[in-house]
């Protein structure tokens, strides 16, 4: 019966709850802006990766490098867009 138990999914769910709790510290503790953002960035991206690998099975086919490559390329461009825009409008204007 061992292989019938969704061990991976249960572990993933527990871990995602822990990450959510960790992110909540920025609300309940009084962290500085930089500390708070560091916590949020880490918890959010780890959480995203967790969903990608555990639940979405991104690495299970022969196309895994193309799928990962595509997703990471998008995340890269997304970050460039976000930070480029913030650079233009907030930090350098």
């Amino acid at each position, binding site marked *: 019966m061992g*292989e*019938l138990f*969704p061990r991976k*999914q249960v572990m*993933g*769910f527990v871990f*995602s*709850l822990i990450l*959510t709790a960790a*992110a*909540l510290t*920025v*609300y309940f503790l009084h*962290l500085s*802006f930089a500390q*708070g*953002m560091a916590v*949020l*960035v880490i*918890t*959010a991206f780890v*959480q*995203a990766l967790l*969903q*990608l690998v*555990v*639940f*979405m099975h*991104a690495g299970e*086919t022969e*196309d895994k490098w*193309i*799928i990962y490559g*595509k*997703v990471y*390329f*998008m*995340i890269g*461009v*997304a*970050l460039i*867009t*976000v930070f480029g*825009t*913030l650079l233009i*409008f*907030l930090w350098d204007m």
Partner: protein
Amino acid sequence: MKIDHSLPLEYSTKQNGLNIFGFWVFLAAEIMLFATLFTSYFTLEHRVGSGPSGAEIFEITPVLIETLVLLTSSFTIGLGVHAMRIGNKKAMMTFFMVTLLLGLTFLGFEIFEFVHYVHIGAGLQVSAFTAILLTTLGTHGAHVTFGLFWGTAILLQLKKRGLTPETANKSFIFSLYWHFLDVVWIFIFSFIYLKGMM
């Protein structure tokens, strides 16, 4: 239609493999869609005009409930796909149904939240901040709503046609979509709500 039995049902025909790969490309595009919304949100976040700011209108309780509901739904659909892979159609359909019910719960809370915002003077037309806030949340909410209809359609097909390569393929793709919405919500939760209340 050639069926390759060495692969999971959802990958077993050539078209199935294409569908899943194509959907990954679509999700990559969705990353940019939400990234653009976040870009605009961060730019307009403090441009509140004469309206309220995020810190003034956000409340932790409904947001936390929404987050937990959505995380759980992501877990249940993961269980659904697991059940599908071991061929247990009944368990799979139950988990899918639970997922959709949780999605509906989430949507209910979100609608309640929107009504609340409008009620306290943070409607769509108040300021650039409220516009981008409601648009970002609304885009996610619209995706969830679409997912509810889509998921229902898949459930009906599962019931009528059983677990075939086509229905398995659709169910798997739907699970990708649902997990993705969960990821987007995590970013909304972290960088809109928690950052705003920090």
